[in-house]
């Protein structure tokens, strides 16, 4: 099984997710909007995943309040053994 690792941001509401999508788009960071992985406690049902290469850019967006997140995680998809690790 191929192992995939992503960065994941979760949000307090769907409105925040939609707003964040716009910011990701305007910065040209590639991302996917997905249902929040079950391994992460659900706050809002939709999360944004992105490449870990862009983690610094995303953290900057959080620090400058351009996006309002609930949490940021490193998410490892590994067959039936998916893991989420909170980053701070």
């Amino acid at each position, binding site marked *: *099984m191929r192992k995939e690792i992503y960065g994941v941001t979760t949000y307090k509401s769907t409105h925040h997710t*939609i707003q964040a999508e716009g910011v990701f788009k305007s910065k040209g960071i590639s991302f996917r909007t*997905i249902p929040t992985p079950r391994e992460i406690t659900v706050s809002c049902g939709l999360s944004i995943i992105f490449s870990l290469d862009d983690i610094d850019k995303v953290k900057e967006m959080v620090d400058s309040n351009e996006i309002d997140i609930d949490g940021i995680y490193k998410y490892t998809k590994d067959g039936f053994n998916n893991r989420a690790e909170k980053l701070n």
Partner: protein
Amino acid sequence: MKIEVDARGQLCPKPVIMTKKELDNLPNGIVTTIVDNEVAKDNVSKLAISYGYGFTVDKGKNNEYYIHITKGEVVEEGPSVCIPDTFKDLTIAIGSDKMGVGEEKLGNILMKSFIYTVKETAPWPATMVFFNSGVYLTCEGSEILEDLKALESEGVEIISCGTCLDFYNIKEKLQAGEIGNMYTIYEKMRNANNTINLG
């Protein structure tokens, strides 16, 4: 004619799909599929049984299996065996580029999230049909093309309504799957045991 299919390292259901493709193309002869695990060996063997072709299995030194399937040599009808759970007998019919009725922005994001979830959840539907504004999802500019192409490469049949592509004038922008007419769309909905309608 002999054809070798090296399906080592391929995840289920790829070995079955790869073998099926060669068997379908081959007029007569032997297809040898190499796999590296027992589940794949069983699944490929079941495919041969479901076609009624004779087959033998050899085990290699590194625990790989060689399944030799002979097309043209029809054996007595064996016990009926289904092709493994590659696909569900399911058609998903999508009649809009949004999921549900309500705010457009929410509908868009829900649809993206739904298609992603379909892609992540095997067994996949056998067919997905797109009609009305749903055809925007299979065309250039759609944010879910990547998922639909991945599903297509796994063998999911993706059909977009030709009338709709024509109406919205995006026929030449189609990027995933094939064009179908109403007969095909109805046939896919009717022949599947289950149809999920979404729009």
